[in-house]
């Protein structure tokens, strides 16, 4: 059995939902990413406290006609890609959000 994985949105990003998609910009290099409808569901549920498997079963499979096995596999690929770009944090433990919000510099 696989260990639980937890996902949390990075604080080093800017994001907005527009229609059924989400635009996410990396603060590290200003690269813009567009998440589709299903990815948006996972993105919005990535609170660091809910295991990815639970997000998939309770959010994705509840809204879309897809089996939990396929959805989880796709979700794992997605979160790993987003983590590679620094947009998401991944952990096998719940992720505590940072106590300080990003500093206002100017």
């Amino acid at each position, binding site marked *: 059995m696989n260990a639980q994985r937890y996902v949390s949105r990075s604080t080093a*990003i*800017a994001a*907005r939902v527009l*229609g059924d*998609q989400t*635009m996410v910009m990396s*603060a590290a290099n200003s690269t813009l990413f567009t998440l589709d409808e299903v990815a948006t569901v996972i993105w919005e549920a990535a609170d660091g406290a809910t295991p990815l498997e639970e997000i998939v079963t309770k959010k994705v499979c509840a809204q879309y006609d897809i089996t939990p096995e396929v959805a989880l596999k796709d979700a794992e690929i997605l979160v790993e890609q987003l983590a590679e770009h620094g947009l998401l944090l991944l952990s096998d433990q719940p992720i505590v959000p940072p106590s300080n919000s990003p500093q206002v*510099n*100017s």
Partner: protein
Amino acid sequence: MPGVMAAVERSSVVVEIGGLPIRLRCNDSAFIRLLTERYAGYIGSNDEADFDFEIELARPGAASSDEDLSVTWDSGRWLMERGDFRAEWNPSTARGRIEQTINPYSLDSVLRIVHTLLLARKGGFLIHASSAIRNGRAFLFSGISGAGKTTMARMAPPDAALLTDEISYVIPQDEGYFAVGTPFFGELARVGENLRAPIECVYLLAKGPVNKIEPIDAADAVRGLLGNILFFARDPEFVKRVFDAAFDFVSRVPVRRLTFVPDARVWELMI
């Protein structure tokens, strides 16, 4: 007791872009004269400046503007560095320091960065776009290098006032957004007129067989803008501000796709 005082004469000039006067001081009066010529049309009163920068000229060397630019926030200061300049700016004291080569275009880069940081506080931004005012309204033509920004500027009719052929200055004002002239130019090598006007439309440029304007959805508009907005600083708060500004802009100003031949008749579509 009489004595001899050695005084270093420090010349200065105030460059005012977008209503933000920045005083530039340097002990090389010839360089200040060079800047006065470079920024003609944007020289403000020496009595009034919101920000002060001391410029130290480096000896000519192997400095290159091709090196990667770094803009970071550290201990209350913005640090800006490239091969041909090193600058720091403390927003709380409104003072900064620039070490650069004698090339005034190094200063151009520093000013662009400082203005992006200042504009972000106000909800504005700099964007790769040419812009011109016609009949009291500003039109922006945005795209990457080679998209046709300078071509659109070059083909502008005589009654259009050119604001820039390279970097447009966008600032929120009166529930909308205004385009402001800048001295930042591209291939046209012509300083823009120091004017401002409400933005009528932003056109994302594409070349094609006919001149035509097409609507685009909000997501494509935001993507198009964000792809051309200048992001110098790798700082989450700065990126969020500019990101939010792009969304707000799209909610207030039309963004369309302009395909053009190129042919001066394309300007007939800007009515």
